[in-house]
């Protein structure tokens, strides 16, 4: 069995099983916890509105800290949006998702995808350098942060190398690229990458609670 055969076959099969089972475990483990009974009289009833408002508002830097957080936030946005464009705009990726879910949408020209991939990677490198050089960020960082960065950057690097057909035969590069995606999928539920789902859960919970208590959002 070649590397590409393994990556497209059993590798992808087990990576998806681990990813789906892990994500559902993490989410259900939190959502099925018993919420403490709140005996106070609610100030508002439509708590879902508070949940939505906080999800949106917390996605932007707070005005008071703007000067200090603008650079990090901008780079984070560049990286996250770039990652999504590459993930959801490249036709081979769309075909992969289509094969699993039956869903599809129009793709973007490859040139745009390659350029976005390069910008995304550059933003990630900047964020890593900032994490390493910033005294507070460095203290706050642990293995999870660096490993999550690595497994996120690896598919972009290998994807660009595959597109450029650089360093090895194409099927080897493609096999390595798919394997790095599988490592990403396997690590997703168990590390900080899970923030891609939990960020909405935590903000929505806080927003709903604030709304109920009548706190300013």
């Amino acid at each position, binding site marked *: 069995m*070649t590397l*590409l*055969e393994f990556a*497209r*076959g*059993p590798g*992808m*099969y087990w990576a*998806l*099983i*681990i990813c*789906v*089972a*892990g*994500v*559902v*475990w*993490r*989410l*259900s*483990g*939190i*959502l*099925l*916890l*018993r919420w403490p009974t709140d005996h106070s009289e609610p100030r508002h009833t439509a708590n879902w509105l508070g949940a939505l408002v906080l999800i949106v508002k917390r996605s932007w830097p707070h005005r008071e800290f703007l000067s200090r957080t603008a650079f990090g936030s901008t780079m984070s946005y560049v990286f996250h949006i770039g990652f999504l464009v590459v993930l959801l705009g490249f*036709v*081979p*990726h769309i*075909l*992969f998702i*289509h*094969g*699993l*879910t039956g869903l599809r949408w*129009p*793709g*973007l*020209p*490859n*040139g745009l995808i390659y350029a976005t991939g390069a910008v995304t990677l550059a933003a990630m490198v900047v964020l890593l350098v900032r994490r390493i050089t910033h005294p507070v960020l460095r203290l706050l960082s642990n293995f999870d942060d660096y490993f999550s960065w690595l497994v996120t950057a690896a598919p972009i690097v290998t994807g660009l190398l595959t597109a450029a*057909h650089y360093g090895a*035969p*194409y*099927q080897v590069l*493609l096999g390595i690229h798919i394997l790095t995606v599988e490592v990403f999928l396997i690590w997703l539920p168990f590390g900080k990458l899970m923030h891609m789902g939990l960020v909405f859960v935590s903000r929505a919970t806080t927003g709903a609670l604030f709304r109920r208590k009548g706190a300013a959002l």
Partner: protein
Amino acid sequence: MSHEPTIGELLKQRGVSRRAFLKFCAATASLMALPPSMAAQIAETLVKKRRPSVIYLSFQECTGCLESLSRSHQPRLETLLFDVISLDYDDTLQAAAGSAAERARDEAMRANYGKYILMIDGSVPSGAGGAYCTAAGKSALDSVREAAKGAAAIVCVGTCSSFGGIPYARPNPTGAMPISEIVHDRPIINVSGCPPIPAVITGTLVQFLTLGKIPQLDALHRPVAFYGTTIHDRCYRRPFYDRGKFARTFDDEGARRGWCLYELGCKGPTTYNACATVKWNDGTSFPIQSGHGCFGCAEPNFWDNGDFYSPLSTATGGWNVGATLGGAAGAGLVIGAVAAAESRRRRKKTTEDKTS
């Protein structure tokens, strides 16, 4: 001792003009992507050489490779057979049969021991003691081992002899093996393809004769001159791939406009061959040009590498996605529920401990 004529002397005897011979050399240089100025050098090298003896053995195959070789246009097969090589044994092409043919082969092998080129098409069955393929009471496995001993080089013609091919595909009922798994002490040149491009077969032979040594090979022992780039890299539909324009069915607007066939399962990106440049039928066309995606037939295990009509980026294995991932989600839900229940129990116990 009889004088064995050189290729130059032979051409002179046959009345082949220098102009015709130079034309052949120019075509060969072009095939090998060499500058036209190299044609004269090829001609000079070839005329001084003696025609090498070639033994051609066929095993588990469909004769498609030989059919392909017989349709070679540049260099033409008859040019190759009569002017450049001495085909001393080929049970499909030769007039002799039975013990006469076997005798001819044994004599040629004895007379040219250590110097002949062994060409093989078809994989070799190893199951049932090699009984699935025998000729003159000798198994294919024994024939290969015996013929390989005195060969200067082995040229595997087609994917079956190069990588096992279709007989090697799961479940491989005959225990088919490629030549590289049987012979380990002789240089092997794989000219893969199902079948290989005729000009690539003849071009490889001429390249070997001209250079006088094994040409530069890739990791799979294929001549880099012909297998150096992927079909995708040289495909005339590549600009459509780059622009994200794909045919989704074989008769939609995209297919009619000649857009990329990646979505229809084309294996061009992972297949190294000269189809997109040398093409078939004297440079007329190749599968992608006629509207069908590449099968990847020049690569190992092409028959088992997933659905021919599924894009390369999709998962293989034919598993039921809904049931499998639904089951995984269910398992995750059970684990999550158990974890949450345990957390509730601990919290309750902590509260009780605090209040008591």
